[in-house]
């Protein structure tokens, strides 16, 4: 038996590791943020902070539900197209029915339907999530283009546009919505049975099923939530741009998955926290923001963003190798 002294040392090492596991990326972000504040002119100003928050908004919002998909061991490539589809649907309904509430509802519902379809195909029929959402990614994008005949749909209603521009306590509404999503989905993952079941399914699907968890139902709920939230993001984006664009949300799915992984959500399922999504989105947004403030040519921005993602995943590998 190891001595009491030695076991105390192990316990301490364990605690340090757990802290590093849970907050390592946060510390890294804070260091990076501090460096940007010192070295990048205009970075820490109030206006830039707002711009930064707005920039990460789509990734932040959709990342909340992508977190659930990844934690359950799946992922969803269709979210970018859903953003376009629901934006177009929202704008079209607004044009014809002149009802803000109805157009918002229809836009979000359109996303929800795509999500429900994904969920049924993946969880119930058992088709691989990569293939299923690759298909719906194209289908949703195609539907968006068909609905508006390839032309962006202007949003006539001032009230609709306000959704993207109104401010509460000096902070724009989309940012409040994003913060609300963080709180809501963080609670859902960490404090509800649905959230814990999600992690169990991602950790070991078969064991979860044999332990009496309704795996199929849970997965369908997750994908439907993902669709609804992507739909919400689409509506917000169309309100911000004053139009429903069929090309909106291009490659957004990759940005969202990158942000989650950057923050430390496992691609193989079972591991994920809302903090990881927040930190991942913040790191990505900060790097991009700093690069544009520094006038880094956009060609180089691609290289840098990719390298950062790779570095984050490498870091994760090293962490895992330490664990075992």
């Amino acid at each position, binding site marked *: 038996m190891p001595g009491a002294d030695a076991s105390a040392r192990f316990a301490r090492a364990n605690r340090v590791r757990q802290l590093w596991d849970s907050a390592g990326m946060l510390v890294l972000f804070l260091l990076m943020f501090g460096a940007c504040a010192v070295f990048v002119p205009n970075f820490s100003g109030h206006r830039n902070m707002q711009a930064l928050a707005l920039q990460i908004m789509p990734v932040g919002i959709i990342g909340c539900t992508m977190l659930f998909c990844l934690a359950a061991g799946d992922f969803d490539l269709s979210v970018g197209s859903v953003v376009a589809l629901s934006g177009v649907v929202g704008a079209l309904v607004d044009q014809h029915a002149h009802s803000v509430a109805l157009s918002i509802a229809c836009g979000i519902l359109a996303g929800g339907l795509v999500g429900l379809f994904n969920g049924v195909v993946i969880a119930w029929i058992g088709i691989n999530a990569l293939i299923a959402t690759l298909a719906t990614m194209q289908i949703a994008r195609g539907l968006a283009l068909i609905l508006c005949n390839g032309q962006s749909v202007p949003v006539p209603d001032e009230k609709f546009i306000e959704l993207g521009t109104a401010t509460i306590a000096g902070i724009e509404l989309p940012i409040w919505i994003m913060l609300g999503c963080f709180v809501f989905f963080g609670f859902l993952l960490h404090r509800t049975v649905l959230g814990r079941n999600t992690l169990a399914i991602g950790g070991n699907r078969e064991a979860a099923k044999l332990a009496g968890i309704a795996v199929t139902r849970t997965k369908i709920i997750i994908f439907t939530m993902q669709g609804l939230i992507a739909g919400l993001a689409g509506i917000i984006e169309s309100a911000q741009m004053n139009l429903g664009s069929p090309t909106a949300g291009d490659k957004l799915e990759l940005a969202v998955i990158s942000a989650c992984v950057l923050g430390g959500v496992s691609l193989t399922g079972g*591991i994920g926290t809302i903090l990881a999504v927040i930190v991942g989105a913040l790191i990505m947004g900060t790097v991009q923001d700093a690069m544009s403030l520094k006038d880094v040519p956009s060609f180089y921005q691609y290289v840098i963003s990719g390298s950062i993602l790779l570095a984050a995943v490498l870091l994760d590998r090293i962490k895992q190798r330490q664990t075992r």
Partner: protein
Amino acid sequence: MSHTLRIDGVSKSFPGVRALQDVSFDVLGGNIHALLGENGAGKSTLLKILAGAYQPDSGHVSLDGQACNFGSTSQALAAGIAVIYQELHLVPEMSVAENIFIGRLPATAGCVKRGRLFDATREALAALGEEIHPRTKVGSLPIAQQQMIEIAKALGRGAKVLAFDEPTSSLSSREVDRLFSIIRQLRDQGRVILYVTHRMEEVFRLCEAATVLRDGRHVCTFDSLKNVTTDEIVQRMVGRSITNIYNYSSRPTGDTTLQVRDIFGPGLSEPASLSVAKGEILGIFGLVGAGRTELLKLIYGGRRAKQGRVSVLGREARIRSPRDAIAAGIVLCPEDRKKEGIVPIRSVQENINLSCRRHFSPLGLINSRRERENARTFVGRLNVKTPSLNQPVMNLSGGNQQKVILGRWLGEKVRVMLLDEPTRGIDVGAKSEIYSIIYNLASSGIGVLVVSSELPELLGICDRILVMRQGRIVAEMPRATATSENVLQAALPVAGGE
């Protein structure tokens, strides 16, 4: 010529666990050397160090006086050390020939020479007394033959040291005989054979020497097993003496709690019926593939039954999924703990509360305080050895993982407990703890159904034994008349029929 493997002062730590501490012993060629110890004693870690999958923190391994510092598994293989794991490392969708020659296919300019490949494969298999067409898909072969392919793969790379990790756990007794004769043949060629097992009878049947590890330390090495008894070895393994690990005593049984009538589905060859009384421990014995696991899964709803009725305490239960079974009071501890039982990366607390948390959470909100209490209760009651409730379950030993799964169910209102191979891969000490948990369950009025391929275990703990053969129940014996002879007799396939 004979080789010698020397393990010299090897230590290895993981966060929170010291897996090996200053372990030293020699393994001589021309001997079959058993490596014994409870789960968590450090056997697997040592094997992984030999295989190059882990690097020791200190100390080293040497073969014939040459120090081996492997940075990777391929370096270990190149040096002539091969480990045959319990879970075989083969590519099921590829052919026998490709599997044996994987990584060194005979080729000119990148094109595989099929003729030479197939000839070499036939030759390699013939040396092991196997005749399998080189083009056969590995996945379509029975485990015993897959094992031979793994051995052929190792020998093809010039392995001087072969380490077997519980190779017989899913073999029939005839297949075990064949494997043993192959292992003896390899020994006679002067190779170093390290043999990890939990089955004492195998040690005495096969091995000439043995090393016992406990808590990551070297306890002793027997250079000869001639004057050593099972009790002596077990005592060294657990650090105390265990006289009778089964410790059976009869208890009163009540009315029928589980009644299964004519259940039928995939894996069975005819409808099966059985009943378990309150407080009864019913064993099901059968060779691998006899349909035991399938029967349990059908009762539990893990597989959908095509027909049949299940009732609990006289009330019919419509079971279409595990959820229905749990609601009816039937729970299952599955055969394959890693794949079907635990959620490895989640904590002990999460794993224990996986099912019963719905009782604490009427609105779907987690009640952390009650979950913690619940986990603490069962960790205490079942004596789960874990540094904390937050420890990922994968870091626990097999026996403790099993206790976590049992603890998961004890939070439910259990009427019937289905246990599939409850002590597979679990060491002697933890085994007797599991048995006493089973006795306690039965004494509290739960009907227990135990499936096991270890006959002594079933004879030791069960009140009654059913025997399955080729997908059907073929015999029933009360404890008083069940002997290993008549149970085995009933379980063996009948030649030329069925």
